[in-house]
């Protein structure tokens, strides 16, 4: 460029070019922007849940006398009260509570992997990534069990006029727990989150593989672990919101 245009003092503005204004790499900024867009997607889903729930009648009676009906929205803790190996023992929210702790734990092991990456400690990165993959897989297993139980339903089931008799469990048309959108939203929201966990586990495996073969040592930086770590924490973050808005409230 001509020398007359260089009036701006480059040292004064971080936006003048030649350096990273956010003081993070391009890849990390892009991961953050992707997460913002993903946050909008999940917000859309959870807020739609709020809309549909608000547009249905709430159960007005005493919580102890609650029974499933097509006329009112179910109380979540009456729906999700089963725990594996404890058949017939009502334990409301215990299983999702365990799932929440599993995901928090996997987030911690991911931070420890990132921290080890900063120190270029390949062995520690491998160890913590394996733990993260393990807890991620355990979470997916729990979710599979939860879905299977939700679809199968209870032995009693409940009478649905539109179905023409007693219906057990749930599909996209009917469910024994309440109005049809309840099951549809359960499948969509937890399913969409589960898909994120699944792709998170696959990405974790990918960076575990790259770590093990020494790609990042050769590159001189473990930043890829940080970027995938951001995604993994985001998945944990979404679960925190799903846990509150779908199960607690």
């Amino acid at each position: 460029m001509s020398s007359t245009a260089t009036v701006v003092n480059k040292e004064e503005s971080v936006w003048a070019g030649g350096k990273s204004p956010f003081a993070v790499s391009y890849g990390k900024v892009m991961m953050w922007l992707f997460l913002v867009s993903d946050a909008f997607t999940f917000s859309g889903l959870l807020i739609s849940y709020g809309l549909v729930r608000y547009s249905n009648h709430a159960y007005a009676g005493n919580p102890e006398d609650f029974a499933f009906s097509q006329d009112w929205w179910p109380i979540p803790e009456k729906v999700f009260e089963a725990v594996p190996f404890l058949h017939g023992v009502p334990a409301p929210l215990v299983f999702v509570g365990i799932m929440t702790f599993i995901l928090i734990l996997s987030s911690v092991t991911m931070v420890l992997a990132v921290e080890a990456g900063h120190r270029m400690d390949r062995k520690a990165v491998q160890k913590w990534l394996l733990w993260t993959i393990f807890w991620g897989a355990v979470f997916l297993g729990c979710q599979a069990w939860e879905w299977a139980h939700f679809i199968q339903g209870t032995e009693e089931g409940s009478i649905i006029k539109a179905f023409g008799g007693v219906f057990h469990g749930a599909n996209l048309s009917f469910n024994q727990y309440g109005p049809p959108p309840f099951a549809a939203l359960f499948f969509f929201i937890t399913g969409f989150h589960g898909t994120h966990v699944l792709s998170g586990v696959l990405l974790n495996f990918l960076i575990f593989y790259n770590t093990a073969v020494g790609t990042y040592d050769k590159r001189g930086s473990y930043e890829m672990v940080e970027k995938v770590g951001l995604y993994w924490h985001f998945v944990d973050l979404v679960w925190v919101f799903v846990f509150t808005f779908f199960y607690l409230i």
Partner: protein
Amino acid sequence: MELHEDINEVIVQPVDKAKIWQIWKVAIILGIITIIEFVIAFTMPSGGLRISIFIALTLVKAFYIVAEFMHLGHEKKTLIYTIIMPLILVLWLIGALMMEGSAILQVR
């Protein structure tokens, strides 16, 4: 793995115990908040107050995950605002769709 010559040049830094403890401290806080949520779920009658407490505790958890685990709290202010500001739109959507929901209930 020793076939890669470059790997031998990598210098592993020692562990900073304070940093590790900080990570576990955040994890313990998240765990304790979750336990508090459970206690409230079983001891408090449902209502507006209970829902507000749940949402407040959720936001505290979200803050710790984003600020500490995702390290956003230690980034540049411009980056923080770039990420947080667009999410204000979500608040509008919450308000709009909740009103819409109760309007649908009225005509049902």
